């Protein structure tokens, strides 16, 4: 079908972060939900209002960081869990710094380069479990509005002598027409065959599928990088923090069929030099029946649906309230 995502680009190059949304944009995105509007503010984040350095009197400022699940791919700004928090808790403003297709490294850099000066009272960090892979890459496979694949460069951290070292800065720019540069392995038949074999075994041997083995061991390099980024980030803050790892949809729909203990164990093992609440969405979502959990994402797009955002917001509200009281 002749479907573009939208009539316009909504991402631009940024030499520190890799990419950001184009500021002051109003775009309609085609989607299986019938389409939705994406609005960005003066700083290039999805928001109906501009972010100001100064906050209002008696207003507590909450900031949320994450990737497309936080930025709100698939829903309008007002339907996101961040905006639902603001609507349901008095005297707070929630600034959503979510950025689609970003790693935790980029989310941390957004905080450091842009958000930090806005003086938060509470920070919510929401890494999608898959971000652990993005953190390891210097470029990510993307798709243009007209469906062409290309690689977009990003900054990343390496652990050198027990320290995090920022690499790929300034981030190299993307060439205008580079769709032919996709490496063969991204679409290789072998990859598809291996994936099918894995699925077959998981299904027939009734063993739990491990989608994110990167969380299996404390010593895996992917986890070490994730842990280092989060530790550095939280330790730099002088306000309360909530850490909310976002599981993959299969994990919260079928926790009996997919390995989840590994990532919970890893995140629970984190030690910071300040208080940090952790929200276990997997556990929170088990309050709902399977049909309801299935409604938290779309049929094809596995980002949160409006129902998913409501469920996340409901999990967050009591903890945000109590964190702000501290």
């Amino acid at each position: 079908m002749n479907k573009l995502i939208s009539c316009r680009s909504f991402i631009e190059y940024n030499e520190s972060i890799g990419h950001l949304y184009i500021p002051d944009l109003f775009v309609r995105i085609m989607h299986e939900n019938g389409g939705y509007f994406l609005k960005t503010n003066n700083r290039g984040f999805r928001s109906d209002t501009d972010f100001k350095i100064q906050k209002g009197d008696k207003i507590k400022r909450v900031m949320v960081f994450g990737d497309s699940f936080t930025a709100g791919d698939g829903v309008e700004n007002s339907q996101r869990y961040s905006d639902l928090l603001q609507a349901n808790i008095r005297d707070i403003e929630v600034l959503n710094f979510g950025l689609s297709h970003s790693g935790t490294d980029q989310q941390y850099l957004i905080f450091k380069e842009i958000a930090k000066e806005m003086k938060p009272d509470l920070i919510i960090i929401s890494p999608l479990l898959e971000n652990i892979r993005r953190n390891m890459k210097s470029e990510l496979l993307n798709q243009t509005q007209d469906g062409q694949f290309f690689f977009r460069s990003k900054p990343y951290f390496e652990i050198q002598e027990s320290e995090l070292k920022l690499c790929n800065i300034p981030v190299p720019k993307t060439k205008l027409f580079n769709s032919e540069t996709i490496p063969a392995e991204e679409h290789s038949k072998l990859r598809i065959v291996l994936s099918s074999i894995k699925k077959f075994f998981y299904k027939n041997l009734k063993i739990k599928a491990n989608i994110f083995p990167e969380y299996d061991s404390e010593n895996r390099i992917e986890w070490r990088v994730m842990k280092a980024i989060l530790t550095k980030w939280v330790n730099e803050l002088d306000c309360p923090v909530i850490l909310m790892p976002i599981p993959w949809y299969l994990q919260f729909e079928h926790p009996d069929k997919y390995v989840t203990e590994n990532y919970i164990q890893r995140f629970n093992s984190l030690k910071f030099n300040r208080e940090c609440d952790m929200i276990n969405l997997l556990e929170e979502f088990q309050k709902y029946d399977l049909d309801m959990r299935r409604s938290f994402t779309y049929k094809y797009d596995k980002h949160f649906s409006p129902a998913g955002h409501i469920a996340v917001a409901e999990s967050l509200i009591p903890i945000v309230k109590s964190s702000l009281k501290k």
Partner: protein
Amino acid sequence: MSKRNVILGVSCFYHDSAAALIIDGEIIAASQEERFTRIKHDSRFPVNAINYCLEEAHIKNNEITAIAFYDNPVLSLDRIVRSVISGYPESKVQWTENAPGLIGYKLFLDELIFDFFKLKIPILYSEHHFSHAASAFYPSPFDESAILTIDGVGEWSTTTIGYGSGNSIEISSEIHYPHSLGLLYSAITFYCGFKVNSGEYKLMGLAPYGKPVFKDLIYENLISVKGDGSYKLNMKYFGFVKSNSMINDDFCNLFGGPARKPESRITKKEMDIAASIQLVTEEIVLKLAKEAKRVSNSANLVMAGGVALNCVANGKILENKIFENIWIQPASGDAGCSLGAALNVYYLYFKKPRVKSSDGRDMQKGSLLGISYSEREIESFLHTYSIPAKKIKIEERAKTIAELLASQKIIGYFSGRMEFGPRSLGARSIIGDPRDAKMQSDMNLKIKFRESFRPFAPVVLREKVNDYFELNEDSPYMLLVSPVKKEARLEFENKGTSEDLIEIVNIPRSIIPSVTHVDYSARVETVDGVDNPKFYDVIKEFYNITGCAVLINTSFNVRGEPIVCSPKDAYKCFMRTNMDVLVLEDYILYKEEQTEFKESKNWQDEYALD
């Protein structure tokens, strides 16, 4: 606050699919799908055009009152079934080729709309020629008017005469398929080696190079015309009822041989055939216009349908002073039916009072109804891809561009909302200095990569139009052809004697040779500064510098490519061709400052030739 009446018009599944959106009778947005998908004449369901219309209007799906479809698929199916039965067994190919599209999509439009937009609201079907008529009458500046629609075919109708008054339209007479002036023109387009539903414009452009020596042959064999303009085709010579070919062996024999192969040399024969069918078309259109005048007794005429894009014929109606005023829908092809269908629903179904502008202008807004890109988006594009560009101060913009034009630079001009309809009107245009005789062939061959004979249109300051052309009317949509004024002409002897089109084209014909066709005609666009003030300012500055109030204005694309839509499309086209400068809103890009442009594939393979 009362709920707004929001109507989404859709045309698709034949050619040039499009969407249009009106709110309380005001045209808010309209666009062809091809601009987004980059597939010329894209006929698929216009997902992207609809998406754009909703974006432009900031309309959520649940705010749409109704969807208007541009024709009646049941009547179209009726025509196809009857044609197949009447021509069976030869005609069964008609069924196998046409029915799946019709039954597969048109009859299940509601499901498609639900799939893409999750909308379950009434879909109202407007008849095809009613859609054309509405697209012509309602946006026009007239309270009442005769209406003439002529195209290939829509359901059964091919030509209609009607009358519009206030919020109502009545069709008084129709000519039915297979008798179709549009299909006759298309058949000859095909015979001359051009693509049907696309190359008709080339045939019209070729006509002045030839002599109408086949006119009698056409009247004697192909079409019989009555005094009131009604006509009948002699189906012995046409293939389109029984097959999917426009013509048959009898047609070829009539013209003394097989059809010209596409891309082969154009000979005197094709030029003469083009001149002949053009003259026949003009004569029939004139008769139809006279009949429309007789039945309506109106001082005004509005027109739509593919044949209304024949600006030479339109110019003849004006020249003959049959009506005092003429208004032609700039998106006269089927794309414009999306707008017409929406307007039909608003006025005829919802019975709303007519919405008109208070200043007497039309409601088409210069046909600048398409997408625009903000300064921030342009900046982002340039920054993201490290494209060298200079920002011009707004007060220096027009002068800077005019100076470049005066120094013979050819400029890709991208500014404001994109045009709705097939003509570039100064939003997505290539512009140049018309005073150089070689500019026409140079621009055709080095920039547009198309046939050298293709004429370029002039865009002229409204207040100066009569200094150059035998015209003193508004022609904002480039739909009227007018002769260049005698005092602006130069002696020109070679017309009709040579087959070397480049040689003919390069001979100066007037003080604005690049926009003067070989018969001294020009397809005029007037600009008055209301709908597109930035474009007006550029021409005005060019006039201040050179004393010439005219520019070349041609569509911003290469051959076979839809007109550019986005900054990226514009930059690609700029870099692939020999344009000197690209204006992206308030940024100027100079070719010599750009980095080398490499593509892994030959871009000319990207677009099918038309």
